[in-house]
């Protein structure tokens, strides 16, 4: 059970997050967590559009020995994030605070990665070389282990 979506424009993000929700429901998630998995995909997909190069989102059902759940991998060929610790803080990009006046211009408030982490049970960032990717997992039953 795998859904692969190339992210080239906003409509692709919409497609990816709809597919993610459907897959989550199929795996057995209730409506609320399925919605949260869709939001994880939405945030990671939007990040690819804004900062990434040639990216894709792959959503799949986890396979043993990983506990049952949904895994979201967001991969692109853009440069690695300069400061991941900073980037996951709300209201920050990877190079410092985000000016509130630029909210609409950025189409976000710099809360994307922070939201992904809060909505996931497991979160990993793998920088380059050549490709970087994020992996977020939401487990059906067990509780969270977050690693940055």
């Amino acid at each position, binding site marked *: 059970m795998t859904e692969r979506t190339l992210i080239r*424009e*906003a*409509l692709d993000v*919409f497609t990816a*997050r709809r597919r993610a*929700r459907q897959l989550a429901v199929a795996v057995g998630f209730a*409506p*609320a967590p399925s*919605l*949260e998995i*869709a*939001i994880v995909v*939405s*945030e990671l997909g*939007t990040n690819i559009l804004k900062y990434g190069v040639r990216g894709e989102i792959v959503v799949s059902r986890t396979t043993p020995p990983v506990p049952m759940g949904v895994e979201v991998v967001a991969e692109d060929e853009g440069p690695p994030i300069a400061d991941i610790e900073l980037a996951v803080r*709300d209201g920050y990009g990877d190079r410092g605070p985000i000016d509130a006046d630029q*909210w*609409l211009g*950025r*189409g*976000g*408030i710099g*809360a*994307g990665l*922070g*939201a992904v982490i*809060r*909505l996931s049970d497991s979160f990993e960032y793998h920088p380059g070389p050549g490709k970087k990717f994020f992996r977020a997992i939401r487990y059906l039953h067990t509780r969270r282990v977050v690693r940055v």
Partner: protein
Amino acid sequence: MIQGTARIPIIRLWSLLLVPVQGELTDTHAEQLRHDVLAEIHAAGSSGLILDVTGLWMMDSHMCAVLTGLAQATALMGTRTIVCGINADTAITIQSMGLELRGVRTALTLEQALLAFGVQPPPDGIDDPLDEIAGFEHST
């Protein structure tokens, strides 16, 4: 399949504007919506704006930023904004994401948003409001 191409209606209700936010909004659509709403407020001299998000199946940080930005822009024009129609799942999600609709007033339902702007509900006991209109004939 819903595409991000639907134009969002802007409805005049006396001195208020009602915008049923729905579908999937790209940045372009969000910018277009902001432009249209602000232009309409300017043209109509609206005293209040209601953003009804009942038609949104999800709100991510991007959508929160669009709504907050719109509310802040209308505030600069002296117009209050109330967001209504956030369902339970979405409310929980916004909270678990650590997001907030900063400075945005919210109401549970469209009715409560209208009440907050001083709109009165119709009196009880009218079976068909059209009966009250002199000279109106039902077509069957």
